[in-house]
């Protein structure tokens, strides 16, 4: 796994803020870059995976933490 270029946290925010932050982060990065997003919204995982399917990014890794937050590593 290559190094992570960006690390954004959307813990405590609700829909649609995670999607806004995600799309703003994707706009700044180039194709092939990896970045990590952490969130704890109940529909966060589904939202990020649908965003990645629509905009043709790939999800490298999803890990669930004990405190309910979800870490997702995305390849732009």
């Amino acid at each position, binding site marked *: 796994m290559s190094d992570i270029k960006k690390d954004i946290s959307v813990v*405590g*925010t*609700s*829909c*649609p*803020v995670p*999607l*806004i932050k*995600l*799309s*703003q982060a994707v706009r700044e990065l180039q194709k092939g870059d990896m970045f990590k997003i952490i969130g704890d919204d109940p529909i966060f995982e589904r939202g990020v*995976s*649908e*965003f990645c*399917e*629509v*905009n*043709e990014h790939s999800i490298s890794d999803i890990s669930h933490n004990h405190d309910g937050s979800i870490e997702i590593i995305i390849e732009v």
Partner: protein
Amino acid sequence: MTDNRKSSILPKKNKKSTIMLVSGELDKALLAFDIAIGHAAMGCEVTMWFTLYGVNCLKKPRSIFSPDKWLPHHKNLGKGRNTRTDHFMQNVLRLLNRDGANNIPLSQLNFFGLGPKILTLIMRRKGIPTLDELITYATEMGIKFRICQICVDAMALNVEEDLVVPAEVLGVSTYTIDTNNAHYNVVI
């Protein structure tokens, strides 16, 4: 992911959507901005149209006690059709219209202005973006704001000074082109 979900995902081609806001209530404005920002975040090109009371949420916040609201408004001194604010009832309409995202009422359970404040408090507690924040996000996401010309004339709106976001004043021809090119149209 299952196969039946894969087929429901939209293909990536420049999708467009238009959202028209007619109502001046907080719940409907929140809904319109949530939809618009969601579409913009998913990669659609969004145009928001505002007319009549929908413009109220884009105005600069001013209370009814502000002297700016009571002063007569004389702008648009152009030639041609009478677009000038020349009837006192236009100024009364301008006075009675709510200004700003913090001052607009709810459509239900308004409680004489207490309802929106309670709702905003609950939304802050839950981490849900309020209307002010949604308008800021919308400008960041590059959503186009367009206002109807007849609304500007009739309700004595000063487009350069009254609004918190840059907006274009356009007519029904542009609206027709926008809606016919878009894949998603709503009027709220």
